């Protein structure tokens, strides 16, 4: 196989997705080694910060449960605000993972292997963060279980026409499949961790979670099949879940929500935000965990290209929104679109455009695609921008709807902000723990790309 590659002209050869000399052994030492030994003070610092942020959020959520969501800024007509913004935001973040691991797997993009694991993990955590909000945003969380269709003596079913119900299904399905997908990929690595683990507890845990993986070729065959199947399944979900989330808005009659462009627009936005978040975390991990040779500039470059592409898509979506508003000649829609940029919250609109469309254009320059400051600037910008995009869509659309008599401004309270911070706290807590106890890089998959490996999913079998 390598021979064929050598025969190819330079530019057609599969790119090396790692740098320097690497053997399975050295790879294991480098990646799995992190889970042994005491973590750096830097790690503890990070954990302390994110944990306390999470604590703040959690206590504010309890406070909300105790007093009612009146402690938030929500009002009439802005019945939804931070709660749903955060939900959509986090679900969005949760898109990169599955996209990278599933779609790129099917597209046979070898550079995904190094980053897939991490992206998947982030998906899980992001969806967990997102999952909090639908629960806490309802007025009576203690009866939120009524959203699930289960036989009951009341003889009432949920309303299957309601997009919120579709959400319940979409998000929970997406979460469980992603989780499976991630865990399946982890098995071989956990197995090798099991072999390396020294501490009794660790050994026990790794053993349990490696569910008896012995690396037999039969295991590998099943593994490959299952992985491929799940990848196929997940691919569909990547597109479906955020489309469904967008239905929450597209299906309503609120001017500014009721738009056919929403599903693709939301999916693109989600991938956009997801990739940005991956870049941010990846850069940190790469530096702190010395993974330059595995997560190469080439990886980052590829990621940034995707971001650039998505940014252009977003730009297109924004323009289309404007066009619809103008072309439809719908007074209400027209009014709302003007509000997006010239209204009381115009700054949010401009911020969104700047962060999501303007700044990312930097990435046309190859040098910037490989420079930390540039890509971090872009990625952070996108994260902020995408949050505010949801702010614009939700709050601004709601605050000026049909009857001017009920127009009212929206002002968030400290509790709103606290809970948002808390969700970030939870996210990074989970990320840090993950980086500590599990292999951040799918060694088994990278090994498949090492010289001399016979990557079974490229036709399988041995030479």
């Amino acid at each position, binding site marked *: 196989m390598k021979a064929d590659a050598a025969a190819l002209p330079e530019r057609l050869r599969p790119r090396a997705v790692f740098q320097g000399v690497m053997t399975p052994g050295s790879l294991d030492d480098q990646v799995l080694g992190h889970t042994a030994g005491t973590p750096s003070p830097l790690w503890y610092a990070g954990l302390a910060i994110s944990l306390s942020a999470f604590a703040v959020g959690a206590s504010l959520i309890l406070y909300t449960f105790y007093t009612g969501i009146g402690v938030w800024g929500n009002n009439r007509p802005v019945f939804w605000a931070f709660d749903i913004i955060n939900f959509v935001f986090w679900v969005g973040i949760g898109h990169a993972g599955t996209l990278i691991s599933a779609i790129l797997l099917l597209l046979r993009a070898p550079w995904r292997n190094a980053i897939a694991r991490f992206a998947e993990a982030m998906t899980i955590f992001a969806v967990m963060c997102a999952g909090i909000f639908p629960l806490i945003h309802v007025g009576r969380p203690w009866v939120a279980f009524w959203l699930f269709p289960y036989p009951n*003596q*009341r*003889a009432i079913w949920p309303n299957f026409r309601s997009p919120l119900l579709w959400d319940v299904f979409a998000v929970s399905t997406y979460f469980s499949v992603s989780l499976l997908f991630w865990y399946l990929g982890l098995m071989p690595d956990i197995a090798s961790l099991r072999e390396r683990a020294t501490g009794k507890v660790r050994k026990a845990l790794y053993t349990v979670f490696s569910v*008896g993986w012995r690396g037999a070729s039969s295991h590998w065959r099943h593994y490959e099949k299952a992985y491929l199947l799940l990848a196929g399944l997940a691919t569909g979900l990547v597109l479906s879940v955020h489309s469904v989330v967008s239905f929450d808005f597209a299906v309503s009659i609120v001017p500014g929500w009721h738009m056919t462009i929403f599903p693709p627009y939301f999916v693109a936005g989600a991938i956009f935000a997801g990739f940005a978040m991956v870049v941010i975390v990846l850069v940190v991990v790469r530096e702190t965990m010395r993974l330059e040779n595995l997560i190469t500039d080439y990886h980052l470059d590829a990621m940034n290209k995707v971001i650039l592409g998505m940014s252009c898509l977003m730009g297109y979506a924004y323009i289309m929104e404007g066009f619809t508003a103008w072309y439809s000649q719908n007074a209400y829609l027209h009014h709302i679109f003007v509000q997006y940029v010239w209204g009381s919250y115009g700054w949010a609109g401009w911020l969104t455009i700047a962060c999501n469309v303007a700044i990312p254009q930097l990435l046309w320059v190859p040098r910037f695609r490989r420079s930390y400051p540039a890509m971090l600037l872009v990625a952070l910008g996108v994260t902020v921008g995408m949050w505010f995009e949801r702010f614009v869509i939700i709050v601004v659309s709601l605050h000026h709807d049909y009857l001017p008599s009920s127009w009212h401004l929206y002002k968030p309270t400290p509790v709103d902000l606290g809970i948002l911070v808390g969700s970030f706290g939870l996210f990074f807590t989970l990320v840090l723990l993950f980086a500590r106890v599990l292999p951040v890089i799918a060694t088994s998959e990278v090994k498949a790309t090492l010289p001399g490996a016979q990557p079974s999913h490229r036709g399988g079998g041995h030479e």
Partner: protein
Amino acid sequence: MHPYDRFVRIVLPVGATCLLLTVTAVGWIAQPDRLARGYAPEQPIPYSHALHAGTLKIPCLYCHAGADRSRHAGIPAVETCMNCHRVTKTDSPAIRKLTDVYDSGRPLEWARVHTLPDYVYFDHRPHVNAGIACQTCHGEVQTMTVVSRRMSMRMGNCLGCHRDPRAALPSGSKILRGPEHCNACHR
């Protein structure tokens, strides 16, 4: 087989199943539908429906006069008891107590047997006027020495009957279904 392996393959699944079964069982036994029934508190006056409604065949509406005029069937005023008991069985301790209450004008506190949540606006009128026997929901009261609750009176009971009232309705009634929309009971 590796001990952990055994754990994963046997202990884990079996344990999970057992847990699930326990939860289901407890849930089933503790369901309010079962708990609600058979509640028979002690009453301040040992009034026997078996005697009055059963043996003496006093019609229900003689005492529960509100049933066809108001949402509430109502508990009879002590006055109503005294209509007879001024003269009958005046020497029995219970009646003496009753007379005493009546004369003093003290309120008589009966223990409540049948309750509905306060967001349920059950209306006796249409049910009584449709000819549905009181026993349908309240059980064979005329046989009860101490009234006990025979129906949990939860939404399932209402809807069940509203969807197929034939059993409850007198033969020849034209009514095919009861209302099932929210406002029928909730406001």
